[in-house]
């Protein structure tokens, strides 16, 4: 049996299918896809449960104390599905396996450091932007929302502007 990783799906076809999934989300529930909100719910639930006195003083955690179960939410279940679907795809395509992916000119440790900082920045930015690339950009494009498209342009615009200065990470 051939265990080498299979080819990736044609990107336009993947985009088309993803568009249908996004369309279905809107048709069934009225809202689009997203991811960063799920991570936020995890943070809020974890912090507020572990350190309630700290969390009570902050408006950021107000939702939790209002009695809402943030873990039983649309976004959290969506991300759980993403995990399942991605795993299934990776398994079928023989792409499973622990790996630290990095550009050819940096060490694994550097990569992990930057992954951490990149994640930190993305987590922070996604709060301001009220969404990440899936929530703001993708779903925003589908309903043509100004905020979503603005955020999308800011993400990619900034990326292009600074790409040169970080090229050693990737090329």
């Amino acid at each position, binding site marked *: 049996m051939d265990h080498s990783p299979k080819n990736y*799906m*044609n990107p*336009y*076809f993947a985009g*088309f299918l993803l568009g249908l999934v996004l369309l279905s989300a809107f048709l069934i529930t*009225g809202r689009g896809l*997203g991811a*960063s*909100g799920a991570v*936020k719910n995890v943070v809020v639930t974890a912090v507020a449960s572990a350190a309630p006195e700290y969390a009570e003083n902050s408006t950021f955690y107000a939702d939790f104390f209002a009695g809402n179960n943030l873990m039983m939410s649309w*976004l959290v279940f969506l991300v759980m599905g993403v995990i399942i679907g991605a795993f299934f795809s990776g398994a079928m395509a023989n792409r499973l396996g622990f790996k630290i992916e990095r550009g050819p000119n940096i060490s694994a440790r550097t990569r992990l450091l930057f992954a951490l900082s990149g994640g930190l920045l993305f987590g922070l930015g*996604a*709060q301001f932007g*009220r*969404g990440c690339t899936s*929530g703001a950009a993708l779903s925003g494009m589908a309903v043509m929302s100004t905020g979503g498209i603005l955020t999308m342009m800011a993400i990619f615009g900034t990326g292009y502007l600074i790409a040169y200065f970080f090229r050693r990470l990737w090329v």
Partner: protein
Amino acid sequence: MINQKLNYSAALFFAFIVLSVAFCQLTSRGFDASNAQVADMLSETELFSYADLHQAITASKKDKFLIVDLRERSLFNEKHLPGAINIPKQELLNKQHQKALKTGNTILLYAGQEHLAVAAQTLLFSQGYEAVRVIPGSFESIRMHILEGFNPAKAFYSSDKAQFEFPRFMSVQAIQPKEGSQENPLFPDAPESTPIPGGC
């Protein structure tokens, strides 16, 4: 091979859209406003009261209105409102009259009976006209309260107002549905309301 899948499915998707839309346009009934839009316009537009009509006829506001008499020619020739043009109601949607109607002024309709003018108003709304008002009452009442001298007491007359104290005559009341006697349960429907957005 993968590209074939893309080609076929995407082609199918967009072809379906193009064909459905073309089909809808071809089978459209020649309306210029949807039924829901017309229903909204009907509920929002008020009758053009005799007070307004009196003002429109006597003041110099005549140029802002196009008064249309929907009755048949012989009745129109006998007597009609000053400045009115005659479009017998069966001919309302004929091409020659459409030109006369598209002057941009507010159209005021009246007929032998009030509800016929209302029906004509509905038809004009459905053809895309927006400024169409109905002069209330039958032609008889228009004659009595406008042509033979404006009667302020009847300024807001309408055929669709109750002319009797109904309960005094008929001692029947509307039936109150009994609890649990729903033989024809209808599915619940959702009224208009704005969704409450959340955030992340």
